[in-house]
């Protein structure tokens, strides 16, 4: 489909100032500064987190107020020489084109994006050159930065009007996403959009990118789809991955979720195994699902520590276990942490004790621990119980504690 051939962030880039969502105060301040030629500061520094509309505001205002943008961003070298070569000519004349009268341009506007990215060595003298240009400029000079507090930018702040941008509020982002969904014919659950918006942390650009990548495959977007959303700040937790896994409606969805999540495979496999009987009540379904989890475990074993290209088969088998029967899903409480870990924790003392006993038997009877456990312990337990003969205890070098332990120990 053609609709995917263009990035939505490009397609829906704000054309007018009013299209930019949020940051009303910053927008107003900037517009006022741009129109007021008698402002006491010749330059403006827009600062704030990424994706909130700084560049968009500059582009939109240029369009609205008929400026031609001369832009230098982090991809250009911004040494003193370079700044002078590009910025000086651009700022030293006003609206020459106006002679013709055919265009309405009010002249140039110098836009230095990402000024916090001016590198120390390669862009030597860049900042002082900018200051000089600001002082001599006949046209508006606009700068944008994420972090205005970098020491080398401090001189700039003296000659600039500071305009602060904040994170865009979640409801505004949701509204925008809804609008885009409408235009792109995407049927999206509100919860899904909400999750995308929250996940973006006020970064509109990333929210739109996420929306596009998630609804790329089909025209629907459910909450489950967003489970695989790679949070830009924190990883998907075990619980979230489990929830997403068990609520997945297709093998593809579960598989995608697994490839996005970065939970530990072994822990996750155990957790899935623990929770499987809660998910599938019917023995036939449970057996089928367990068979697939077991296959996945086999693939996990083959991966070992080096054959990571086999990971896709592991995902695939595991994902199949998530959708043995999509209809039978009912919400349930997860068992966590893994039963195995809990069990082993509470029984560690017992195992150690039994282990020592078996080692003592092994030393006397020329057998391994395992053989001692299987072939001797059940008999010795009964013998000690029936005949309180201390001789055998002495011969095997058991302590009183170990004798008591054997007496109390249940049969296996």
């Amino acid at each position, binding site marked *: 489909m053609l609709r995917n051939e263009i990035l939505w962030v490009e397609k829906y880039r704000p054309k007018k100032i009013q299209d930019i969502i949020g940051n009303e105060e910053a927008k107003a301040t900037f517009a006022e500064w741009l129109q007021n030629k008698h402002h006491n500061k010749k330059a403006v520094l827009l600062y704030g987190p990424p994706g909130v509309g700084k560049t968009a505001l500059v582009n939109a205002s240029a369009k609205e107020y008929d400026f031609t943008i001369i832009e230098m961003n982090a991809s250009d070298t911004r040494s003193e020489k370079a700044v002078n070569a590009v910025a000086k000519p651009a700022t030293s004349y006003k609206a020459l084109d106006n002679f013709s009268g055919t265009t309405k341009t009010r002249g140039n506007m110098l836009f230095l994006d990402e000024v916090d990215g001016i590198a120390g060595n390669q862009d030597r003298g860049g900042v002082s050159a900018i200051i000089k240009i600001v002082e001599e400029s006949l046209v508006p000079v606009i700068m944008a930065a994420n972090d205005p507090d970098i020491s080398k930018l401090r001189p700039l702040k003296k000659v600039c009007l500071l305009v602060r941008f904040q994170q865009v509020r979640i409801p505004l982002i949701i509204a925008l996403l809804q609008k885009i969904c409408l235009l792109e014919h995407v049927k999206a659950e509100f919860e899904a959009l909400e999750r995308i918006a929250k996940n973006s942390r006020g970064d509109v650009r990333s929210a739109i990118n996420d929306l596009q990548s998630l609804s790329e495959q089909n025209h629907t977007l459910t909450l489950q789809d967003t489970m695989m959303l790679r949070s830009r700040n924190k990883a998907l937790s075990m619980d979230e991955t489990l929830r997403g896994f068990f609520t997945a409606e297709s093998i593809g969805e579960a598989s995608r979720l697994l490839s996005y999540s970065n939970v530990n495979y*072994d822990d996750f*496999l*155990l957790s899935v*195994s623990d929770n*499987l*009987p809660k998910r599938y009540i019917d*023995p*036939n379904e*449970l*057996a089928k*699902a*367990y*068979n697939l*989890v*077991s*296959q996945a*475990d*086999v693939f*996990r*074993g083959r991966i070992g520590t080096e054959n990571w290209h086999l990971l896709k088969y592991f995902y695939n088998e595991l994902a199949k276990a998530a959708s043995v029967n999509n209809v039978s899903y009912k919400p349930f409480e997860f068992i966590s942490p893994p*039963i*195995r870990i809990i*069990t*082993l924790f*509470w*029984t560690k003392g*017992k*195992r150690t004790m*039994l*282990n020592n006993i078996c*080692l003592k038997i*092994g030393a*006397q*009877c*020329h*057998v*391994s*621990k*395992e*053989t001692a*456990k299987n*072939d*001797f312990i*059940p*008999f*010795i*337990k*009964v*013998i000690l119980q*029936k*005949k309180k*003969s201390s*001789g*055998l205890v*002495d*011969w*095997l070098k058991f302590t009183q504690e170990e004798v008591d332990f054997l007496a109390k120990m*249940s*049969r*296996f």
Partner: protein
Amino acid sequence: MATNEETLMWVEKYRPKCLDEVVGLKDIVESLKAFMKKPKTMPHLMLAGIPGTGKTTIALAIAHELYGANWKNFTLELNASDERGIDTVRDRIKDFSRYSRSGFGDIPFALIILDECDQMTGPAQTALRRIMEIGSRTSRFILICNQSSKIIEPIQSRCAIFRFSRVDLQAMKDQLQCIAKKENISLLPEATEKIADYAEGDLRHAINALQTASAYKEGIVDEKTVLLVIGEASPMLVQKMIRKALYGDFIDARKTMYDIIGNFGFSGSEIIRQVQREIFKMSDLTPEQKADLSGLIGEYDYRLTQGANSDIQLSALLAQFSKFGKNLEENYAEK
């Protein structure tokens, strides 16, 4: 009889000290005795066979024959399943095998007995192979294993292999009677029959059962006591786990599984082995059903060796059992 003697485990007390005392196993003993006459000609040995058939006994008897009462000074006995890593091979075995003992008596080599060495890891076996070659002037190995197929071929080719089959029923009964006589116990014939039957060719198991049964009543072992012992010694939790699963109570079955793992530290493959054994003892299953279940067990036993996590494979097997049990139930309902 001295009280001290009485206190031993009988399997140790009546373990033959030299090759002549070994009953049964005639062919093996004859060939080994030929080596004993000219010890320098003795190759490395591999003793393979099911448990309780006399492999360790033969190995220890050889040590006795070679070195006499001081055998422990010249013999390194390792239970490979407890110490099966490559570190053990490289450190303890290598050091022991290198040290020439030609100064001590007629035997120019030391003896290294590796028990249950089919449990050794692949890398450890590979390391062992070299050591066997380099150290053959100063040491001889006796490798003991259940399945010779689990030993890498280069090692097999360096050994004279002796295979042990299960102890003959009559030989076992004779042995039990012989021990009973020495212990002043009247062992009733039906009781002997039951023990031999239960032991399935594993003499160690049989002797342990006899000793346990003798603890019940002074001076006599009858069939009833033997049945009691067999009941006590059977893996109760494993049976419970199987039953729960077959009755469709998967959650409880799995809980029991974790009881077994947690309290006794059994490995996954050990539990599967016990499950297999118990299934065949269950009287309420038809032979066809046992065969079906056995097929399932075999599949998951194999996956266990391939997989990463034994808990998952065991759980999956129990889930299969639940399904099997449910389908049985439905079949009965239809009829």
